[in-house]
């Protein structure tokens, strides 16, 4: 498996650390309530198909948002997480 680091280009999967679903991008406000925080911290989809995940490129310290299909194994676009988060 190969992932396109937005800084370094396409690299082998061994250089990356999987860092969970893109849910992490949407951190609730402190007063958002129990349900919102429960969702954010504990609940994750287990998609068969298209998924959006954060991957950490260890050598350069970059978090990328990566589109990946868990059925076909196709890896799509990867963009800087900080660009999406802004």
């Amino acid at each position, binding site marked *: 498996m190969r992932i396109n680091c937005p800084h370094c280009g396409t690299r*082998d999967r061994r250089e990356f650390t999987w860092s969970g679903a893109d849910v992490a991008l949407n951190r609730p406000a402190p007063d958002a309530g129990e349900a919102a925080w429960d969702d954010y911290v504990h609940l994750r989809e287990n998609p068969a198909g298209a998924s959006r995940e954060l991957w950490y490129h260890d050598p350069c310290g970059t978090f990328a948002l990566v589109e990946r299909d868990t059925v076909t194994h196709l890896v799509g676009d990867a963009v800087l997480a900080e660009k999406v988060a802004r």
Partner: protein
Amino acid sequence: MRIEGHGLIGPGTVDFSFDGKRLQGREGDTLASALLANDVRLVGRSFKYHRPRGILTAGPEEPNALVSVGQGAGLVPNVRATQQELFAGLAARSQNRWPSLERDVMSVNDLISPFLGAGFYYKTFMWPRAFWERLYEPIIRRAAGLGALSGQTNGEPYEKAFAFCDVLVIGSGPAGLMAALTAARAGADVILADEDARMGGRMLAEVEDVDGIPSHEWVGEVLAELAALPNVRLMARTTVTGAYDQGTFGALERVALHAAPGAVSGAAPRECFWRIVAKASVLAAGALERPIAFPNNDRPGIMMAGAVRAYLNRWGVAPGKEVTVFGNNDDAHRTARDLAAAGVKVVGLIDSRDGVTSGSDYPVFTGSTVIGTAGRLGLEHITIRHNGGIRRIRTDCLAMSGGWNPTVHLTCHMNGRPVWEPEILSFVPRPGSIPGMVVAGSANGVFATHGCLADGIRAATEALAVLGVSAPQVEVPEAEERPYAISALWAVEGKGRKWLDFQNDVHVKDIRLAAQENFASVEHMKRYTTQGMATDQGKSSNVAALAVLADATGRGIPETGTTTFRPPYVPVSIAAMGAGSQGKGFAPERFTTSHGASVALGAPMIEAGLWYRPSYFPKPGETTWREACDREVAMVRSAVGVCDVSTLGKIDIQGPDAAALLDFVYANTFSSLKVGKVRYGLMLREDGYVMDDGTTARLADTHYVMTTTTAAAGLVMRHLDFVSQVLRPDLDVQIVSVTESWAQFSVAGPKARELLNTILDTPTDDAAMPYMGCGPVMVSGVAGRLFRISFSGEMAYEVAVPADYGESLYRLLVAQAEVLGGGPYGMEALNVLRIEKGFITHAEIHGRTTAFDIGMDRMVSLKKDCIGQTMSRRPGLLDDNLEQLVGLRPVAAAGQLTAGAHLFEEKAEAVRVNDQGYVTSVCHSPTLGRMIGLGFLKDGRARHGETVRLVDHLRKIETLCEVCDPVFFDPEGGRLRG
């Protein structure tokens, strides 16, 4: 028998041995061709019945001719003789026989074979149940087998490597060469990989012309052109073993195994496992010939027709003196033709098809089949059915051909299922099975040379299109375009076993038995009969086996389907796959700058993650670690000690929003920290549990240096990257790990300042740097940093210098400490010092404890948002009945405490439901003269003074303990500020 003047081998002779017998081959021989040249026909015993077996093929599909090569720890078992290149001194041994290949005791299995059919052990060895593991299985395993490993550690070198290209071409036959040539002329980066030592594929094994010259000469010209191009890499002896996601391929290169030890180059690895990443690929892996299942078709001397032709045309070897050929297709005729042309006596061509003509001198039997064979250790006669009669023919070599199977394996590695092609009675790859891969030539079911050459150009053109490159005009060379006609012939009825899988001893009746017992799915049949298992994975036998299954179940072959081809295509040694990851390669060592000095002082080094740290520093006369540890603790409490703390994570944080970032990642506040001050920080996970702790110093308004625990240094760095990039990209802050840039030493004890002032250019004092102060200093002329922090409870400093100066500063500090009655201290003493002070480590913040549990709840600031704050306020995490950090001391002075023990009320039974907590850290405190411990106890903070019972079921220890405050020593902290 060698035919002089024939073949493509060199004139030089090569001495080798087989089962200790000295033999001679030629340069360019494989072990198999050299054995055949020496008229060695018997080379192995079969897996289950120990039947005599000979060389069947000339390639990687070989099921029979497996030998062990080499001696001792370097021995390699199950080497295919057909792929092992001959070298001077090669010593090969046959396998799975005792005492010798000719007289094998276990061949008795063959006589009782009616009782050993498919699945026999499931039926026969059922009772008594316990006998299976202890008796039956070991006996069966010993009787059935391939070569054995040496059992010794293999110290031979292996490597792994990575390669990248635009187009990977797999196979260097006519299709592969034209594909490589086309892609190369288009300017693409090309890797051409072939499993053989010599490139050219079947073109080295056939007598035919390409562009008016013999095909092997044409191969030489193409290879010369490719070798001269800077954008082409030729990888011979390299088998592409697997196709993986995103154009990644595994490949095994035999770097030195093909030659005598040391012959390639002293440092050359035996094998190299490559990971090749290609934007596009062309699979031109050719085709594998399949046997026909006729009675007793496994005797040494019965070979594949294409292999017989290869031995003749490439290696100049005739595998027999009176050869017969048996086939159901036109290709078999080429073997007879080439043999006759080379002067080898062809005593009969048996073609199962009617009305086939052949303008030849040798007898041709059309509409005929071979129905039996004879010869104990090698073929002597065959019996054929011809014109309704039976005929016996004397022959020592039978070349058989049941047709050719395209080598579809790699196209199946990502769940691709091949498609049945009735024209060639075999499976061809399903297009698009591997993204970016185009299949060409025989692998695609195109068998004629001209067709393969053209298909290679076509495939390269399509592969280049994947790259967005247009292909140049490449002429298709002139070559034969002979049709390939075949009619189905899978099994020939008759008395005797009709073998399908030669390696696993599976015959037609086994498959029919499986079908009869309702193992009718092809995957069930495989597991019931072992058809297609072991080292050859049924390369030659699978298609015929499923044709027999299809017949037995009354289905068509396409409905029956194939089993799943998985990587690797050929066996790959674990040593090659794991190259570089054995021993220390698996866990690289990280050394501090003081490592050499600590080792020189006799300190045993212990692992801390990948780091190595001194455990203690033994003095003459000390016989146990405890003596050294107690002395070092007393030394720090009374004088001064020096300890390398460089392994702690150090993270440099700079920018206008550095303070805001720290306020967000720490539970407590850092924006209020004054420049020149240090603060203890507690870091939570988002679920409210403690992640890590450490101190952070503010060096300037927009510049902080964070320390982490040794264990969590990488984790915290990634966490900060996560927070700054994913959660708070609005913050203007830069973060970098500087752990290895700075060497940092703790100087602790009442004489710490006195020691420091011997090395600082400007002496420090309590006013200049009070407790929790920090600032730049000059250390013997080197710019460094000084932090007044303590993990021991004593007045202590940590002094940091650029790592280059670490070793000399450490030696200097130790030398000066000794003058003051101090010295170095190790991890054991460090641990005792911190337990005496109730300081926590990851033994306490082990991922299941909260700030509330460790008594730091009030540090979680509610005036700001921070990671973990919201979830840490969950009512369930703030319950008094939760386990809370306490100190434990034995009621009796000699009482034992053990980490991992559990706590119970004094009179309660020590069972799970009565569990009150557990012990996390213990030590013998020389300061207090007894053992002390830290642990977690339900409602522990309210229970100081109570007596609880410590129970360690594993070590059989029970101790009554008094619950106390976790700070055992100097609770007021007066010594820190001293």
